[in-house]
């Protein structure tokens, strides 16, 4: 007699034996973790890591790691990532032991503070050493939190990227754009946390279900590795007979995708569809056709999976990574008054570039002037370190191509492309 699985191999897609651990690091990370715990699927381990006892006490995670020290009396890391890092380094064996046996480790953190910024790279390293694949999900601070935090976040992000297999970064500022006037602070944070949780859920669905068209974790990691922080993820769900159309509409309206413009700009896009056993090929086709049309220039990786609980439903998760103008051209560097900011940031490990994705031609200068300029930049840098308050950072550089004289006129949209934006930028042609 045949077993059921043999009889009906497609509908009953068995869950892969992937063991997943989710680490919430720092205050924000633990908050997101708590949010996720409410709808956690079985077989996922949750670990809360923080320096703050109160935050840990409020969490219902199965395992908690308190990185304590006499100095702080459980009051947190005091906003100093270095301290956070030291604490985490001291507890490295403990962290490693926690990661033991996990195939995939997600790290949730809010960058910009002491704990999330300092600890998450260490956790990533520990997980890596324990043999797991590591994926970071992080937020960067709101613009109003100030330039100092943003800079810390940027540094933390770079470190995390070096340690993890892939990092997806949600700039909070981006979410801010989608809020209306009346959204309270509490709700705002809730929404950003939900965005993050949604993203993680979408990804683990992708990894846990044996797909019809599989996306391997390696594909995912390769997509995220060596990319710039500007990865956007969007998850949308729809039900009913017109679900494939609806889900696409929802996806394109998603704030993270900037009205579909993000897709046009993206370099690589990963799409995962999850539907019930009634998912038809035509629906998959329809969704993919739309995605492909939106991002003609991007490398599109797709996957599809069946979940028996998804009858009559269709969920699409999408990760888009943007073009990277150069290694380490961080989000901080790209906004605002390029020169001063650049000078202040120079002493840090990452090379910093001004402006935009467009790289201006190098100025023609005689060698002595170059020398002078370099000397000045050095001075500017040391000064900048002492006076971080000078940083006026209100916006992340996600939409910085100004349209000049067409700013106020009706945009000329052709197949999702804004023709008012210079062609060379849309095509990614570097000048130089």
């Amino acid at each position, binding site marked *: 007699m045949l077993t059921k699985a043999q009889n009906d191999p497609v509908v009953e897609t068995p869950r892969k034996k992937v063991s997943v651990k989710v680490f919430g690091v720092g205050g924000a990370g633990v908050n997101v973790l708590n949010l996720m715990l409410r709808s956690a699927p079985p077989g996922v381990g949750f670990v809360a890591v923080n320096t703050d006892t109160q935050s840990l006490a409020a969490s219902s995670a199965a395992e908690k790691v308190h990185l304590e020290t006499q100095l702080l009396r459980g009051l947190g890391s005091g906003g100093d990532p270095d301290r956070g890092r030291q604490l985490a380094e001291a507890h490295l064996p403990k962290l490693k032991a926690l990661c033991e046996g996990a195939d995939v480790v997600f790290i949730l953190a809010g960058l910009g503070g002491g704990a999330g910024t300092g600890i998450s790279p260490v956790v990533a390293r520990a997980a890596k050493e324990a043999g797991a694949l590591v994926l970071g999900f992080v937020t960067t601070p709101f613009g109003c939190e100030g330039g100092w935090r943003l800079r810390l976040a940027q540094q933390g992000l770079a470190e995390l990227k070096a340690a993890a297999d892939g990092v997806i970064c949600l700039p909070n500022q981006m979410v801010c754009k989608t809020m209306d006037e009346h959204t309270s602070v509490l709700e705002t944070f809730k929404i950003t946390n939900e965005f993050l949780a949604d993203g993680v859920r979408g990804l683990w669905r992708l990894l846990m279900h044996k797909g019809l068209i599989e996306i391997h974790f390696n594909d995912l990691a390769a997509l995220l590795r060596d990319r710039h922080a500007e990865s956007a993820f969007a998850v949308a769900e729809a039900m009913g007979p017109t679900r494939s159309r609806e889900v696409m509409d929802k996806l394109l309206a998603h704030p993270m995708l900037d009205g579909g413009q993000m897709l046009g700009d993206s370099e690589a896009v990963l799409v995962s569809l999850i539907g019930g056993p009634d998912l038809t090929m035509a629906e998959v086709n329809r969704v993919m056709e739309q995605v492909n049309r939106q991002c003609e220039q991007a490398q599109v990786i797709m996957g599809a999976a069946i979940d028996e609980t998804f009858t009559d439903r269709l969920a699409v998760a999408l990760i888009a990574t943007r073009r990277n103008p150069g290694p380490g051209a961080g989000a901080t560097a790209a906004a605002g008054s390029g020169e001063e900011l650049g000078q202040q940031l120079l002493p840090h490990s990452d090379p910093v570039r001004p402006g935009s994705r*467009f790289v*201006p*031609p190098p*100025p*023609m200068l005689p060698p002595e002037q170059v020398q002078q300029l370099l000397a000045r930049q050095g001075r500017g840098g040391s000064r900048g370190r002492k006076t971080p308050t000078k940083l006026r950072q209100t916006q992340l550089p996600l939409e910085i*191509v*100004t*349209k*000049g*004289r*067409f700013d106020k*006129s*009706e945009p*000329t949209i*052709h197949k999702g492309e804004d*023709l*008012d934006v*210079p*062609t*060379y*930028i849309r*095509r990614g*042609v570097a*000048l130089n």
Partner: protein
Amino acid sequence: MFNASSIIVGLEIGTSKVCAVVGDLGADGALNVVGLGQSRSRGVRKGEIADAPLVEEDVRHAIVEAEQMADVEIRSVYLGVTGGHLRGFNNRGVHPVVSADREISEEDVQDVIKNAKAINLPNQNHVIHAIRQHFLVDGQDGITNPVGMLGSRIEVDVHVVHGNLNRLQNAIRVVKGLQLEVDDIVFTGLASSLALLTNEQKELGSLVIDIGGGTTEYVVYANGIIKHTGVLAVGGDHVSNDLAYGLKVPLSRAEQLKLEHGSSLLEEAAKGQTITIANELGLPIKTVNLEHLRRIMSLRLEEMFQLIGQDLEQAGALDYLRAGVFLCGGGSRIPQIAQLAEQVLQMPVSPGKTNSISGLKSALDQPEFATAIGLVKFGSFQQRKRAARSTLSDGIKNTLGQLFRRG
């Protein structure tokens, strides 16, 4: 000096300039350009009015200049309209022939044209042109005049150009505000093609691309009729804007660089070269990389032709263009633009010549004036039509399509 009814004025409110051309329709039917007035346009973006008072002022300047030059008083104009909201499509009308002997009568022809022109459009849309194409009798294509033929079913295609009523009204209101009558509004792409193409070129099949300041219009003729029209709200302004952004110079400087150093192709010779921008005292203030300038320009222009090419391919109009492509508008002055268009569209491209009107030599030689001259030409057809109607007591209603074909 002139009989008022023989004076025809074409007014184009463009993105970069406002231009009025005065034509005199002689008793023998010959059209003569006698006056030209123009003024820098300040209140127009992408072919549409953005600042009505400024536009009004500019139009007044152009009209006054044209009046002085032609020594006439201008009372009414043919107004050119454009903008990204304009759309062109083909529509077909069907009519069964019911007479006992199956002979197609004049009434049948009128009915089928009426059917074809009955178009379902949203309320806010206005049909600017409904231009007749060929008739089909029982499915047989390419019939220009079916009267007297036998058949059971007669069909006709019309090419419809329509746009947003309110936006069209904006331009009309500005002109009316100057106490001028608007005889008719005309799609500027159509006007340019009227000025540029000879009957033979229309018959062979040609594409006219009018590269203006804010918009680019294109019209396809094949077998003597208009097959396809389109507007792309991208023009010379976009080139300047790209340069201003890419080279980090002010827009006015970008405009100047475009005119002085611009080219459609990126040549080897330009690589590594720089241009020094000097201030009014002759002191250098900035250097600009020529290669970057050319690359930014050529990418933008290339994309423009690619978009037009794609649209024509979708409309299935690319295969009809045996006479090639004709360029006009200020953008056609960019050096080597014909070569670039040839590369992209893979067919012969040449600058258009407004050759079928006599008159002011200086005015006729400029590609920028093709639209305004075409407007005058359009007006002359209308005038002739009116004259013909008044002489023929039965008042045979000529259609626009017929008139264009004669042009």
